[in-house]
């Protein structure tokens, strides 16, 4: 119960992308997804990111690119990465619980989360582009548009998220 409640809070915390553009020149959402995973139980973490995705689909402008919300977002090729946050948060939570809380181990967990993010996001990208293009794309091209430009920055974000988890968890008491 308390776990679910905590999840909602994180879900809403995501929304502060509104204040974020003034602060940093890139999207901080992956960081939030990964931290959520680092702090909550697997189910709660996944539920919190799932709630985020659904709120966005219901029309609240919480997503990072125009039109920011609404059911049309499903047809954006990048929607898979929003679903990927669910998988990412869940994975981080799983790995983190197994490994424990040292900076290095937290980093392993968040990097696993990034892997999960792409594991969901890329196939979705592929499928949607296939619908639009009406034919198959080759894998190299897919990686070129959806993977190589972002992976370095996302790995960096994973490290930032790990650092945050290590800082926040002790302040929450047991961190469990």
């Amino acid at each position, binding site marked *: 119960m308390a776990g679910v409640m*905590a*999840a909602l809070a994180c879900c809403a915390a995501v929304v502060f992308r509104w204040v974020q553009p003034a602060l940093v020149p890139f999207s901080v959402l992956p960081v939030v997804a990964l931290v959520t995973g680092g702090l909550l139980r697997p189910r709660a973490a996944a539920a919190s990111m799932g709630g985020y995705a659904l709120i966005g689909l219901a029309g609240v402008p919480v997503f990072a690119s125009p*039109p920011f919300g609404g059911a049309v977002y499903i047809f*954006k090729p990048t929607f898979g990465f929003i679903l990927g946050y669910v998988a990412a948060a869940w994975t981080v939570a799983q790995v983190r619980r197994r490994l424990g809380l040292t900076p290095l181990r937290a980093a392993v967990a968040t990097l696993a989360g990034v892997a999960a993010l792409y594991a969901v996001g890329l196939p979705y990208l592929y499928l949607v582009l296939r619908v639009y293009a009406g034919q198959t794309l080759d894998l190299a091209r897919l990686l070129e548009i959806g993977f190589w430009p972002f992976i370095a920055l996302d790995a960096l974000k994973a490290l930032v998220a790990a650092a945050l988890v290590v800082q926040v968890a002790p*302040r929450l008491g047991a961190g469990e």
Partner: protein
Amino acid sequence: MFSGLSFGQYLPLGSVVHRLDPRTKLVLVLAGMSAVFLARGWVSLVVAGAAVMGLALASRVGMRSYLRGIRSLWLLVALTALLQMFLVPGTRLWSLGALAVTREGVAMAAFMVARLVLVFVLAQLLTFTTSPVALVDGSERLLAPLRRLGLPAHEMAMVMTIALRFIPVLFEEADKIVKAQVSRGASFQAGGVRSRLQALSSILVPLFVRAFQRSDELALAMEVRCYQGGEGRTRMNRLCLQADDYVFLAAAAAVLVVVGVLTRT
């Protein structure tokens, strides 16, 4: 900045479509999308399209709003059209080096574009005519049968409703923290990536901690009041299908059948 829950894309207009039960609207939109994707050939697409456009007109939301809503997707639509025009083999209309535009390609492009625009309009319709809370409510009821399979429908709905309520609260919280850090001399605009990241963590850490404190308090308050999940809960606003809902549902079923038959033949 954002007080209350009125933000989002919902346009409260009070049309027939607005008054429909959120469950009906979810089903209508799903049926409409299936019809559009099922359609093979122009006749069936026109039938599906007429139904979609009829629904859009009945919603009394101006066509301009629909077009504005899908503005960011135009690039994709254009890309689709171009790819179809060049890549579908057939009779050449004109060619540009190795690339050739074919008659079949142009027809295919027009078909795909019509299809995409219809699907986008349907998705927009849902968000324009249904408030987020109503959507949450409707999807909870629609998904309730899946509870047996372990899908926590009520819990998900609760997560969303509370998160919606928490958005403005956390805004205030974030605002306070930013001001507190600035008053201590923190600077968020200056410096390289490294110092900006450090500045960011000076906001994120307290924000996460506050969010968790808030949710702990809320969880305690709910447990004290004997909240224990969806089992046996009553609700203030019961969803109830009206005559209009049945009419629209029947119409949707009819359109689906017609499109299905047309694609078969």
